[in-house]
């Protein structure tokens, strides 16, 4: 067996074999990537009106993307360490049966590249879908706010006029 082809193949086989843990993990990575993508998209927000009224949104969303990034790192590190704990026995056995730490690291590296690639591509696709939804929701939110604002204004106006009439 060719050594160079062996590690990527073994990494794939390992992922498939640990599917019951790696599928949820992959979904997690995809979800996190999607969340980050949406936050970035909202921060850029080209489809929002360019008036000063919305300027604060962009600034807030930029802070938001930073917060999401920090939480994503913490969250994914934790999930990954949980997975590794589950696989300790498997990795230990590889070591005893004659696989050096370096080789185990290479295999784990390949696994990581696969998960990252699948997670990021899937996450961006998912994000593209959900981002439209998020923008729609945001517009809806603004419209509602606007109407409420207008409504309150009219009420207050009428109330003032009402009082003025009876003075």
């Amino acid at each position, binding site marked *: *067996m060719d050594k160079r082809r062996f590690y990527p193949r073994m990494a794939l086989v390992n992922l498939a074999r640990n599917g019951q843990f790696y599928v949820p993990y992959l979904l997690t990575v995809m979800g996190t990537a999607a969340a980050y993508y949406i936050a970035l998209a909202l921060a850029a927000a080209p489809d929002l009106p360019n008036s000063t009224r919305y300027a604060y949104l962009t600034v807030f969303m930029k802070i938001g993307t930073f917060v999401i990034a920090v939480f994503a790192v913490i969250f994914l590190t934790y999930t990954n360490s949980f997975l590794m704990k589950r696989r300790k026995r498997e990795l230990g*056995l590889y070591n005893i049966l004659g*696989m050096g730490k370096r080789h185990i690291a290479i295999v784990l590296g390949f696994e990581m590249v696969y998960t990252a690639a699948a997670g990021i591509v899937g996450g961006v696709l998912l994000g593209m879908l959900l981002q439209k939804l998020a923008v729609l929701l945001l517009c809806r939110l603004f419209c509602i706010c606007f109407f409420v604002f207008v409504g309150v204004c009219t009420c207050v106006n009428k109330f003032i006029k009402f009082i003025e009439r009876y003075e």
Partner: protein
Amino acid sequence: MSLLEVSHLQKIYTTRFGGNQVEALKNVSFSVEPGEYVAIMGESGSGKTTLLNILAALDKPTSGQVLLSGKAICDIKERDMAAFRRSNLGFVFQDFNLLDTFSLQDNIFLPLVLAGQDFKEMEKALKPLAEQLGIWDILSKYPYEVSGGQKQRCAVARALITNPQIVLADEPTGALDSRASDRLLDLFGDINAGGQTILMVTHSVKAASHAQRVLFLRDGEVYHQLYRGENTQEQQFGRISDTLTVLAQGGEANG
């Protein structure tokens, strides 16, 4: 020349901040000839596992030396260690340590796969071994589908498939019922008769009575050893239990 030579082995465990010191092995010296079948007995805490860990190069002794065919295994660098273990040592564990996600055949092939061997050669090596161990029919099954005895025989096949210089077995019968134990010990005898060197750590008098030589460990020292010689297995059983009784009473052995 001896296959395995252990001289003045000492192992002291220290807690992280140098607080408590435990001397697991004091001064252990023995040697194993090629083709020998040696059992190591001792109570819990007598240093059996520590000794085995050092022999397997999983742990480093505080002082002393282990030579395998004249090569000091403590001096092997970490990066060469895995290859060394793969080609020279075979392991049989108490709890089998088979991977549930692999079929039995893949479990047996694992060390060869890690060595990057050709699949056809693997199959060639597997056939006689699987037939000898009586697991030929169940090779495509998964570890959770077969009995403990079958699992352990599969683990033995995994240990033997690389043609190791020495097989290290840690309580191989510890998790088996008496019938499966008997069968496994008979197989160990056959394998040894085929010229394979076996070193087994065990609690069980019965398991030890199958070996050609029994070493008794107490408080980190080799306390006594018994050669089986011309004795039958039953006679050897008696001699071992007598020695254990003396050992437990703390007296001097005279066997």
